[in-house]
């Protein structure tokens, strides 16, 4: 594989458009960090409303905002934080019908959604739209993060061909999470998104950083593109957004 120059994806901060897909446990610290970064536009996509059980980890929302759309609550947070750019809110579930259009409006995408289905959908949409994005996932005390330059560095499907089958992963009620562990991952995601915009070579691309709060340890695992990847390989099976590629999850 030929080396690529991350400057290809660089955009001046004041013109940069960042999408945070999900205004929850990962989106909160990402938005908090992006608020003071000087980016031009922050997009926030989320279809949920704030619930009391979100507030132990989703620190941009407030108790009085329980019941409000998370997008509106996030916009309120950004305004209060003195964010000087524009805020675009998408109070909708990203699905195969709208995701390409939304993702294409942005220079870099932060994957802050909370289902495997959404994560794979976002991965495919970003690869197909040629948008760099920062994946992260968190469960209980642990999480992982990777930055993806489409068709340049390993994507989520290079590592895992498809979402795990329903039942093999914890259901909603088992999916506990230490709020601040999500905070660590989301804050790293914001830092990664900014490095993408700045054209830096030090992003966590072609490597996964795994974090374990129980031991406060980080582990870096090198990864590489898979030529057989269903979306970014040499003969991709996925070349458009089709519902069949995203089986519903038990908790959806």
């Amino acid at each position, binding site marked *: 594989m030929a080396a690529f120059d991350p400057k290809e994806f660089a955009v001046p901060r004041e013109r940069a458009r960042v999408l945070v897909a999900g205004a929850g446990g990962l989106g909160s610290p990402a938005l908090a960090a992006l608020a003071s970064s000087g980016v031009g536009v922050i997009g926030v996509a989320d279809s949920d409303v704030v619930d009391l059980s*979100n507030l132990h980890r989703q620190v941009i929302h407030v108790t009085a905002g329980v019941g409000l759309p998370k997008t509106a609550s996030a916009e309120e947070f950004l305004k209060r934080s003195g964010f000087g750019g524009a805020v675009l809110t998408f109070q909708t579930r990203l699905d195969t019908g709208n995701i390409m259009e939304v993702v294409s409006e942005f220079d870099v995408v932060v994957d802050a959604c909370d289902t495997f289905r959404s994560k794979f959908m976002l991965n495919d949409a970003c690869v197909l739209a040629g948008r760099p994005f920062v994946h992260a996932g968190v469960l209980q005390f642990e999480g992982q993060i990777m930055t993806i330059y489409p068709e340049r560095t390993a994507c989520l499907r290079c590592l895992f061909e498809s979402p795990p089958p329903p039942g093999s992963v914890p259901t909603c009620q088992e999916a506990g999470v*230490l709020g*601040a562990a999500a*905070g660590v991952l989301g804050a*790293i995601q*914001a830092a990664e998104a900014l490095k993408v915009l700045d054209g830096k070579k030090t992003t966590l691309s072609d490597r996964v950083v795994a974090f374990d*709060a129980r031991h*406060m340890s980080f582990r870096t695992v090198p990864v590489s593109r898979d030529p057989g990847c269903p979306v970014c390989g040499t003969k991709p099976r996925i070349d458009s957004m089709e519902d069949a590629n995203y089986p519903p999850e038990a908790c959806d």
Partner: protein
Amino acid sequence: MPLRDDQIRRYARQLVMRDFTGAAQECLLKSRVLVYGEGPPMDLCVLYLAAAGVGDIHLSGVRPSVLDLIWRAAALNPDCRVHEGGRGLRPDYVIDFAQDAGPGAARRAAGALRAGLPYLKVLRAAGAAIMKRWREGDPCPGCVLNAAGLKQTDLLNPGETSVSGPAAAAFATLELAGLGVPTHNALLMDADKGAYRELAATPLPECIMCAELADGR
């Protein structure tokens, strides 16, 4: 005191975890944390502590944004009370975000150790953060900074990363909830370079501050 119904709902997603018992949550709600310093990571740390249900957070030192932070923490979780100033306080935990790796930091570390209190220190420089939970015999903050290849003057340019805020909150939350001390190793979180790892730190020979820490004076 048993958890109220609204508290069970608020903390449900941490209470579902095996080790995060009701007793652990009650420990958090009774705990008192003293925080030194200022800056965006410290703000984020306070919000995460408040969100997890830490009962009282005392902010030492005066800063212009303190009222906003107090409002935010209260708006996020009314179970948590954030106070301005920490003089004469007997905390359960000390988190030091002051951009100081000199005698002041060594004195705070020694003071906390002498009082038998956990002392967690965060230093930020050039887009990186160093975090360490001190114990007796550890090198001084200055020597840990040195081990990361950074100098005191680098503290003047912290960079924009906020990773250390939630990291310190995760550390303190686990410890205050009785889930153990995650590590005594110094951690380097260099968001700018994409390097996240342990830092091997040893006292520099004849370091006065290290000697002071070892003395526990």
